[in-house]
C-alpha cells in the first residue's frame, strides 16, 4: 500500500460505488480513520474551505475532531477532547 492521499481515496471510493467506506479491523486504526472519513466528506464538498484544522461548510465552521492547538504542540500533550462543535465564524480582519 502506498501512502494514501485524499485524492487516491476519493478515486477508490468512487470506483467501488456509493456506500463504500474505508475501515480497518484494528480498532485503533479504525478510530484514526474517522478523521479521514471527515476529510473525505469535506473533500467531496466543493463549498468546504479547509483552514488547517477548521473546516467551513454549509454555513458553519467546525474545529476538526482530535485536532487542537495544545495537543498539536510538541511541547505539550493533553488528551484531545471531541471538537466537533460549531464555532462562530471569524469576524472582520480574516
Amino acid at each position: 500500500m502506498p501512502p494514501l492521499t485524499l485524492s487516491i481515496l476519493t478515486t477508490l471510493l468512487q470506483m467501488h460505488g456509493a456506500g463504500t467506506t474505508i475501515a480497518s479491523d484494528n480498532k485503533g486504526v479504525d478510530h484514526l480513520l474517522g478523521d479521514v472519513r471527515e476529510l473525505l466528506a469535506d473533500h467531496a464538498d466543493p463549498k468546504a474551505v479547509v483552514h488547517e484544522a477548521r473546516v467551513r461548510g454549509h454555513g458553519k465552521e467546525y474545529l476538526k475532531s482530535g485536532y487542537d492547538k495544545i495537543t498539536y504542540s510538541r511541547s505539550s500533550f493533553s488528551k484531545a477532547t471531541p471538537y466537533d462543535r460549531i464555532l462562530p465564524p471569524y469576524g472582520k480582519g480574516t
Partner: protein
Amino acid sequence: MPREFVQTPVDYLLVKVAARCNIDCSYCYWFRDKSVYAKPKLMSVAVRDQLLKRVEEQIIRYSLPEFSILLHGGEPMLWGVDNFVRLAEECRLISNRTGCSFQLSVTTNGVLIDENWEDCFERYGIHVTISMDGPAYIHDIHRHTFQGGHTHALVLRALRRLQTRRISLGVLAVCNPAHHPREFVDFFVGVGVDHFDIMFPDATFEDDPPHVAQFYCDLFDIWFDANREERKLEIRSIESIIAGLLGGRSKSEAVGYSPQEHCTILTDGSMEPLDVLRIAGDGSTQTSFSIFHNAIEDIKGEPRWNAVRHASLNLSDKCNKCQFFEACGGGYLPHRFSKRNGFANPSAYCDDLYTIMSYMQSALGKHVYLDHPSRNRVSIGDAIAYPRA
C-alpha cells in the same frame, strides 16, 4: 511545489513564564542556547499584564472564538501558583468580556506540584503535561537535579496526585533507544496512563542522533496489538504517523507536512518563533519584536518567523521526491538544522523516519480495506493494485 496553507489569525501562544529550571536534564534544548541566561528568570507583572492586553486585543480584532496559551519554561511552576491564578482569573475576565474561551495548558517536570497547584489546575481547567521518561531507571538517566540526584520519585508522586483530581493530564517522554519501548509502555499503563507520547530526542546534523527506527517499529507493534479489539492505548507519535499514511492529519507538529507558525513569548515580552529552534545555537530564535511594541499578529511580518515558516514548507529535494512527503513533512523542523545548510535539509532522522513509515505502511496495508454493504471487502493494497473496471 509547496502547498498553500491558509493562514489564520494567531490564536495560540507558547509563553515562557520562567527562563530557568529547577532540574538539570542533560538533553534539554532550552539551555543549549546560552542567550536564555540574558532573559529575566521569571515573567514580571508588567510583562504579564501587557501580554494579557495584547491577547485581548487580538481576540477582539479577529473575533476569535478560542485562544490557547501554553505556559512553559524552563520550569513554568517556578513562576509561582499565585501568578498562575492571577493569569487564569484575568483570562476569565477577558472571556466574559469577549465571549472567547481559553484553553490553558502547562508543561512541567512535576517536581514542585503540591495541593495548591492541584487546586489551581483543577479550578481553572488547566491541562497539565508531565515530562516523564518512563520507569525510574530510564527517567533518572537524563532527568536529574543539579546535584545529580534522582527526580523520578517526586514526578511519580505528582502524577499519582494529579490523577486523583479532575485534571486533564498527559505525559511526554523522550525516546531512549537503548531500552525497548515495552519498558516505557508497561510502566505508563501500570501507573494508569494510557495516553502519552514518546518523542524523538532533539538533535541536529551537528549532533550524533541515536538510531531510533527499531524503537518506533516496536512501539507501533505494541500500539497495534493493544488496540486490536478496542481503542485503549493512545501514543501520539505513532498515531500521527498512521494518520499521515492514511491521508489524515497528524496530531503532532513533529511529523506531517504543515507550516510551523508558533509564536513564543519570552519572560521579557520578546516575541520569537518556535522555541525548540534554539538547538540550532545561540540567538537562533532572536527577533526585535516585543509585546511592548508589537501586536501579536505582527509576528507574521517578522523576518525570522517568516523564514521559519518558509523552511517548514519548502522541503529539501530529497523530501520532495519521497513517497512519505505528506506523512513525514520533513519531520520536526529543528531536526533539519545544519550549520552548512540551515534548515534546507531532510531530517537528521530521515533514514529512521523512512524505515519507520515503510514498516507501518506495510502493516497498515493488510488491515485497511474498502467496505461495501453488498460486496466482500477489499484491502486498500488490492484496491490500488487491481482497480475495478
